[in-house]
């Protein structure tokens, strides 16, 4: 807890009151001594004189002694009274701000509100707030000795010191990296979903297509989507335009990029803010470490994106067709097992996870690029529907899809990958998707993704009950 002084006026009963008391006692005592000395002086000068002077000398002498005696008694009595008043108010204010603070903490904990910076990914209890008049930074704008409900900035501006008085409307910044934050970065329930995978598996296209589908289907899902920041919205629109013009999204360069935030609001519920991460596949080792290290307290789940064309069996299966489309398909250079191993190693290093322990968060294993060749007929929706129809016992689409993809991975000699996934992850579900919808062919035909939203909704449904119905609906 920082004890640095705030640029605010502290409650009188927590600081200045005691300094004032000390100054009052000191000054009154000095005044008494001065008065006594003055009276003694007069008595000394008058006593040798006539009877009248002697009488005055007696009077002044008695007064001098009385000033010292009664002065001491007065300052003792007045100080006791003064301290009693100060302590009474101190106690009342202390109880007041403690109660308000604990109520606020309890309420925020119940609503699962906390601050996460989309830039440095640091979790904090509270951002730093700017004074709306002078711009001074208030690092602990909470009920405290600076005020129970409001803090008064040194400029005189009254600032709300609690969530209940719309403190979130003040401009705020991250206490770690000092980048500006929006109210939604604090006053919302959050879900954190990084998309992992090797280079060129299609993470950026997956992320933006999933957000695009989420925004498109928000009405049927019962949410009102919005972007917390204009720059996120601009980035989203830019990538959507690229996809609509048949261009693939620009490659992610940052090892640990800024979180892509989408706010989802449902009437009568607190807002939900998604933190989606699309780290560069090249910086895989350090990226996973950084991401997982930062998010270990609040990770909602992982999307593990697989490019099937990194699998030797698939490359062999389509060896006649691949050379012609290699540039368009851009098979990832990182073997799938290596990608998974790196996630697990990072979890062990940064989470302190035992080598035999399991990841508790849901892991969506998503096979991308199913638009290529006849993959859709091998592991896509038609096969799932056929399996459901052919099954002698009722089977859900989720189960059928999981069975089909798992069986196909085994046929593609990925038994070790499947075994690793199922041994090390508590909740695994297999999905297929095409984050572009078709292979890039240089034309301006729009890309229309398939199956990108379901993995995200599945993770969100497990992380937050508000998404559970949406996840079922999407399934």
């Amino acid at each position, binding site marked *: 807890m920082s004890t640095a002084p705030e640029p605010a006026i502290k409650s009188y009963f927590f600081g200045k009151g005691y300094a004032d008391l000390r100054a009052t006692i000191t000054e*009154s005592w000095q*005044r008494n001594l001065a*008065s006594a000395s003055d009276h003694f002086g007069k008595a000394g000068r008058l006593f040798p004189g006539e009877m009248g002077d002697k009488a005055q000398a*007696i009077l002044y002498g*008695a007064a001098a*002694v*009385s000033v010292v005696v009664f002065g001491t008694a007065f300052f003792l009595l007045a100080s006791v009274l003064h301290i009693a008043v100060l302590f009474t108010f101190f106690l009342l204010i202390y109880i007041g701000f403690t109660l308000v603070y604990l109520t606020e903490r309890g309420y925020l904990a119940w609503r699962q509100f906390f601050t996460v910076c989309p830039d440095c990914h640091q979790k904090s209890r509270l951002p730093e707030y700017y004074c709306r008049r002078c711009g001074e930074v208030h690092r602990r704008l909470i009920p405290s000795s600076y005020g129970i409900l409001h803090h008064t900035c040194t400029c*005189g501006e009254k600032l709300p010191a609690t969530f209940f008085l719309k403190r979130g409307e003040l401009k705020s910044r991250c206490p770690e990296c000092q980048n500006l934050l929006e109210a939604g970065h604090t006053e919302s329930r959050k879900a954190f979903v990084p998309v992992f995978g090797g280079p060129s598996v299609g993470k950026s296209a997956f992320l933006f297509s999933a957000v695009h589908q989420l925004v498109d289907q928000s009405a049927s899902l019962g949410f009102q989507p919005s972007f917390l920041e204009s720059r996120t919205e601009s980035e989203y629109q830019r990538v959507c335009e690229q996809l609509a013009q048949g261009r693939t999204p620009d490659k992610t360069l940052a090892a640990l990029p800024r979180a892509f935030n989408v706010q989802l609001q449902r009437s009568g519920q607190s807002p939900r803010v998604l933190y989606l991460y699309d780290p560069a596949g090249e910086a895989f080792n350090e990226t996973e470490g950084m991401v997982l290290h930062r998010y270990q307290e609040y990770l909602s789940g992982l999307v593990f994106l697989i490019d099937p064309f990194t699998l030797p069996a698939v490359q062999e299966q389509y060896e006649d067709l691949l050379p012609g489309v290699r540039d368009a398909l851009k098979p990832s250079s990182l073997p799938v097992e290596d990608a998974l191993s790196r996630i697990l190693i990072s979890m062990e290093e940064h989470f302190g996870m035992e080598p035999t322990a399991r990841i508790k968060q849901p892991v969506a294993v998503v096979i991308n690029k199913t638009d290529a060749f006849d993959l859709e007929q091998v592991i896509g929706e038609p096969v799932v529907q056929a399996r459901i129809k052919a099954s002698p016992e009722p089977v859900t689409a989720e189960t059928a899809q999981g069975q089909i993809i798992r069986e196909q991975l085994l046929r593609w000699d990925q038994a070790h990958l499947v075994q690793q996934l199922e041994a090390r992850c508590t909740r695994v579900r297999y999905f297929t998707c095409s984050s572009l919808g078709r292979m890039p062919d240089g034309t301006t035909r729009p890309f229309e993704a398939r199956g990108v939203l379901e993995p995200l909704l599945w993770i969100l449904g497990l992380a937050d009950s508000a998404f559970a119905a949406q996840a079922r609906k999407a399934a």
Partner: protein
Amino acid sequence: MADDEGIGGLIGALFMLVLVVTAVILAVMALMSVGALFGAGTALRNYGLAFSNNIKPERATT
């Protein structure tokens, strides 16, 4: 007769002396009481002045 007059004068003189001494003591006591009240008043005024000079809530700088 003359002895009776001498004793009477002595008693009268002693009485006068006691009277004068008592009056002086009372006068000194009265002066001291007034002085004590004056001193107490001074002490009270001193505390009041010190209180009003020092007890001020903190104000904003602008």
